[in-house]
Structure formats: structure tokens, C-alpha cells
């Protein structure tokens, strides 16, 4: 199996605020990221696709196609946008590196038809990045509700450990 990685940069604004928290709690949990005026980052996205090279072309997938998918799904949605207000997929979520990486995974996964999406790595800065990969679930792949249930089960298991 070969892993192919394409890199892309976008710039966007965000801030962290949970409407269920008090103003004081928001400041305590999110610190300077809570500034309601927002702030921004130059995000660097690395998208890795895994698969076998096609014997005819020698390619897992055409990187030009991957570039076009990244332009459509990520650049057009997020570049020079305010992530709190302008990206519907992030509505109701705090636009952290973790959540943005997961949203990008869900946007890209159905678009990758040659090879399989292997990893989404999103750098918020050179010293901070989130990785999103597919969880190896003991009972195989599960759709939406199952995923939330297993996340909740793991969260409970972690807290009660």
C-alpha cells in the first residue's frame, strides 16, 4: 500500500465561545481564544490517501483531482472566511483544530473514490496540529449514531477509569 499526501494552506478567522457557559466560564476555559472579535491562523492541511497504484497509470489517484477536491471542499468553504459564521458544517461546534479536522475528513471521505482517505492532518500553527484518522472499531465500521454512541462510551470509560 502507498500513502500519497497533498498539502494545502488556507487562512481563516475564529474564536471559541460556548453559549451554554457563562461569560466568566468562557474566559476561564478558552482564555484569549474567547476574544469575541476573533483572531486568525494560516492553517496548513495535509491530506493523505492510501491505496495501490493503478498498474496503467502508476498512480494511487491523480493528484490534480485531489487538488481540485481540496479546492472545492476546503478552500472555497474556509479560505478567508470566519469559521464561526460562514461554515455551516461547523455550526454548533467550537471551531477547534480537532473539530475542523473532523469536518474536513467528513467532507473529503465521500469524494475520494480512488484509494481511501487515510489521514487528515491540520496545522493551526507549526507547533500545533490535529490528526483525524478512521478508528479501528472492534465491531467494524458503523454509521453516524453508532459513532456518537461509541464516542460517548469512550468518554464515559475514560472519565470512570
Amino acid at each position, binding site marked *: 500500500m502507498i500513502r500519497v499526501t497533498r498539502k494545502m494552506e488556507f487562512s481563516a478567522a475564529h474564536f*471559541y465561545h*460556548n453559549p*451554554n*457557559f457563562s461569560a466568566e466560564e468562557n474566559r476561564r*476555559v*478558552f*482564555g484569549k481564544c474567547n476574544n469575541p472579535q476573533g483572531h486568525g491562523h494560516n492553517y496548513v492541511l495535509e491530506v493523505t490517501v492510501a491505496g495501490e497504484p493503478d498498474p496503467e497509470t502508476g498512480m494511487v489517484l491523480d493528484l490534480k483531482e485531489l487538488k481540485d477536491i481540496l479546492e472545492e471542499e476546503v478552500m472555497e468553504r474556509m479560505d478567508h472566511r470566519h469559521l464561526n459564521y460562514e461554515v455551516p458544517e461547523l455550526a454548533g*461546534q*467550537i*471551531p*477547534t*483544530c*480537532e*473539530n475542523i*479536522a*473532523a469536518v474536513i*475528513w*467528513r467532507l473529503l*471521505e465521500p469524494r475520494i473514490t480512488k484509494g481511501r482517505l487515510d489521514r487528515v492532518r491540520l496545522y493551526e500553527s*507549526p*507547533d*500545533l*496540529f*490535529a*490528526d*483525524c*484518522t*478512521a*478508528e*479501528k*472499531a472492534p465491531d467494524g*465500521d*458503523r*454509521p*453516524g449514531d*453508532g*459513532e456518537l454512541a*461509541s*464516542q*460517548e462510551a*469512550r*468518554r464515559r470509560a*475514560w472519565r470512570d477509569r
Partner: protein
Amino acid sequence: MARPLKISLTRRYRFAASHRLYSPKFSDEENRRLYGKCSNPHGHGHNYVVEVTIAGPVDPSTGMIANLGDLDPFVGREVVEAFDYKYLNEEVAEFRGNLVPTTENVACEIFRRLRKFPNAQVERVRIEETSKNSFEVADEAVGNGAGPR
């Protein structure tokens, strides 16, 4: 069909420290042969970069695996303050005895300290000793005797 996702977060920290590779189990000659210029009795130093990876469920109320407001001071206290501008062989207790402060052992010691982080699982520690050498210790390596105690 959507696959369940695994999210991790990696943060890079830095410290500068000196060390000397020398094992009291070997003769001076053997140490020189084994460790070469790294065995220079006066020591030498590096700008170490430590990559710390935490994994686990993302808390929906914060969007975070763990708050960097908790991770940064924890790593700062356990690693950066303990190692930065120190002579590892003398000033980090674990390396005063027979444990040679190779970056393998430094990585294991850092991993052992960081696994006590109470808010999330520290899954991996990767150290760059220089821009050309890096060493990685991950959860699955624990318990084989060579890994962290």
C-alpha cells in the same frame, strides 16, 4: 458509510540541554569506542524539540481533547522546567545512576512523566535531538522492558 473517527492533537515544545553519553558499566576506552564524540567528558548540548500527542474523545462543550491551558503548564512543569538549560546527567535524577541519557532514554523518561497527565491519554512522544535525528515512543511500546518504567 461513515467510519468512526479517531482524533489526536499534537503540540511541540522545546528545551535546550547538555548531556554526555557515558556508561559506568564500560571502561573509558569502551565508552569512547561505543559513543564516539558523544562521550566527550565535558558534555555537549542540543536544542531538543518534544512533540506530545494526546488522543481521546473530543469534549463537545469545548471542542477539545484536552485544554492546552492544562496541557501546556503540565508539560512545562514536568519536562521543560525540569530539562531546560540543565546538564541531564547530573540535574535530572533519573540519569544520575546507570541510565545513559541517550535520546531514546530521554524520550522514555518524558513519556513516563507525561503519562500522568490527568485530562487525556498521552499517546505518543517524539523527540527531535537535532533536525536529523528523532526518537518516538508510543503507548504500544510500554511494558517490553526497554520502554518507560
